[in-house]
């Protein structure tokens, strides 16, 4: 058996086991169980982290606009899917809102309740991604000409502008101003999240390993050489920016699903920072790393370290120390340690199939000795 085949089988087995585990968990646990919550949130974060990695890790464009694109996706999804019957309640300050339809209901009218709602939801996610991509195109025209840290600050600024814009009262009939959007349809089980995100990450992986992905990496490694070898910098940077934003937009839509309410407030630069730190923990330039880090991050912060905030941790009860906020404080110290001393993160630039490499290399080494 050659190595490539071995790798493919290894990867397929790991993924299948994970998916099966998720399906089983969905069957035996209620959807409000913390494990299901962790899986849902972590998959959403995975998608956004991977999309950010595509830009920051693979193309070398240091962009901090992720939260802005997520906001676009989240709002698009929520605005278009709120059922007609719920609109007067949601848009109570804006006379039931300005949009006289709900996409899943329109779809249901044609395709029947179950299929229609599902397709409508997916369609709205897609629209959110497309809107984010469109905005990325427009923003990219001026912004992508900027060098590293200027680009970072410009994209960060753009995300803040978007947030202000969505809270603007004049847009209230659509965005509900600074009030919550809610009551839209969501997936309550974890499996749909895993499947959707898995598919999208697979697409990103295919992109990265394609000739365009290689061109992105060439730009990251040496822009001057890339341009001299015929790679159109403006075009490829724009492409990476748009694709990354598209997936961030979809991630935002799924975030809306996970949170069940949407407001502009959570889409602050702090969210972008959080995602960036996840990418760093996982390893800049590793898709597997981003996914793994998302799961670890969410698992630790939402579940395992909960006790640090509520008085008891590992059987030690010390309400004076283990109070609200201790968890995140400990967490950020861990992050700093990784940033300073383990700069490669968990995976460096390795991917899941490469893990088998290491093992077989070790085995070979042992055999040689």
């Amino acid at each position, binding site marked *: 058996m050659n190595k490539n085949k071995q790798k493919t089988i290894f990867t397929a087995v790991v993924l299948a086991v994970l998916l099966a585990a998720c399906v089983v968990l969905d069957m035996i646990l209620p959807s409000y169980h913390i494990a299901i919550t962790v899986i849902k949130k972590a998959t959403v974060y995975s998608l956004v982290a991977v999309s950010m990695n595509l830009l920051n890790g693979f193309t070398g464009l240091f962009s901090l606009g992720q939260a802005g694109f997520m906001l676009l996706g989240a709002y698009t999804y929520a605005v278009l899917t709120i059922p007609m019957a719920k609109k007067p309640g949601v848009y109570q300050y804006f006379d039931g809102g300005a949009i006289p339809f709900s996409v899943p209901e329109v779809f249901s009218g044609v395709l029947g309740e179950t299929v229609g709602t599902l397709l409508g939801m997916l369609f709205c996610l897609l629209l959110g991604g497309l809107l984010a991509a469109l905005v990325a195109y427009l923003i990219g025209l001026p912004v992508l000409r900027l060098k590293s840290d200027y680009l970072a600050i410009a994209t960060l600024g753009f995300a803040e502008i978007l947030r202000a814009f969505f809270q603007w009262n004049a847009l209230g009939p659509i965005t509900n101003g600074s009030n919550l959007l809610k009551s839209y349809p969501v997936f309550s089980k974890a499996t749909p999240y895993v499947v959707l995100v898995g598919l999208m990450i697979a*697409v990103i992986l*295919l*992109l990265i390993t*394609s*000739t*365009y992905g*290689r*061109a992105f*990496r*060439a730009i*990251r*490694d*040496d822009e*001057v*050489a*890339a*341009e*001299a*070898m*015929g*790679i*159109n*910098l*403006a075009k490829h940077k724009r*492409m990476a920016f748009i*694709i990354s934003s598209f997936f961030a937009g979809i991630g935002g839509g799924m975030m809306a699903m996970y949170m069940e309410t949407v407001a502009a407030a959570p889409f602050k630069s702090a969210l972008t920072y959080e995602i960036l730190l996840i990418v760093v923990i996982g390893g800049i*330039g590793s898709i597997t790393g981003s996914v793994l880090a998302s799961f670890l991050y969410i698992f630790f912060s939402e579940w395992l370290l909960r006790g640090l905030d509520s008085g008891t941790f590992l059987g030690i009860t010390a309400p004076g120390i283990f109070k609200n906020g201790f968890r995140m404080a400990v967490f950020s110290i861990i992050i700093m340690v990784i940033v300073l001393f383990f700069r490669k993160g968990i995976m460096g*630039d390795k991917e899941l199939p490469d893990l088998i490499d290491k093992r077989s290399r070790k085995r070979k080494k042992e055999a040689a000795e």
Partner: protein
Amino acid sequence: MSKNVLKVENATMQFGGVVAVNNLNMEINEGEIVALIGPNGAGKTTAFNVITGVYQPTNGAVWFNGEKIVENHPQGKMKKLYKGEHAGDYTNVLAPTPDKITALGMARTFQNIRLWKSQTVFNNVLIAKHCRTTSNVFSATFRLNKKEEAKQREEVLELLKIVGLDDVKDELATSLPYGKQRRLEIARALAAEPTLLLLDEPAAGMNPQETEELTAFIGELREKFHVTILLIEHHMNLVMDISDRIYVLDFGKLIAQGTPAEIQNNQRVIDAYLGVAEDA
């Protein structure tokens, strides 16, 4: 009379008050190997950068295969600064980015090696093929371009065999010894399928034996890939061995041109350059 490949006309490149290239005129015909020589700081690399579109010249024009690819007339601040004799001759601004020029069929190497560090030898060459790919981002992502990709991979493998790097194809580019990195740079440039190859000091930092090998190698390139070559070099043995014609720059100005024999006997060149420098 063979076809004209490159023509540089009155090219001037000014950085503030410094005139790096002053009124350069050059012509290269199909199949020639032409060398651009001159002491350090004579403006050779700047001339390369003007030809390949990295710099927008202050004045002058460049033709490639009969098509005008670069033209500039002094504008803005440069208008006051530029007092060259050809001021006003050029009225258009044509300043394509380097990638467009490469797409037209010109490829270069760099004086200070600029390989893609995180990529393997194979990928370094394969990425240079990207500018020849006809697939768009969707067909590439969803693997609808399998045929093209396979063909490109095959061509790259072939190319690596010719330059003698096929045995190290899976190693990281930066792990190669210096001489092989230079070869890889040439292979990468060739992968872009150029008709004109520009080599910026390909023998820099090589010992005499490596230089000799490289001289033979460059000669072979012309035969195997049907390329015209313009090179900058300090190793005079190499230059005199393989060049059909030589241009000599000093302080940005062209001081002589001709066959190796003519250049070797040119008093101005000897004064400016060969007379002081030991033949390497």
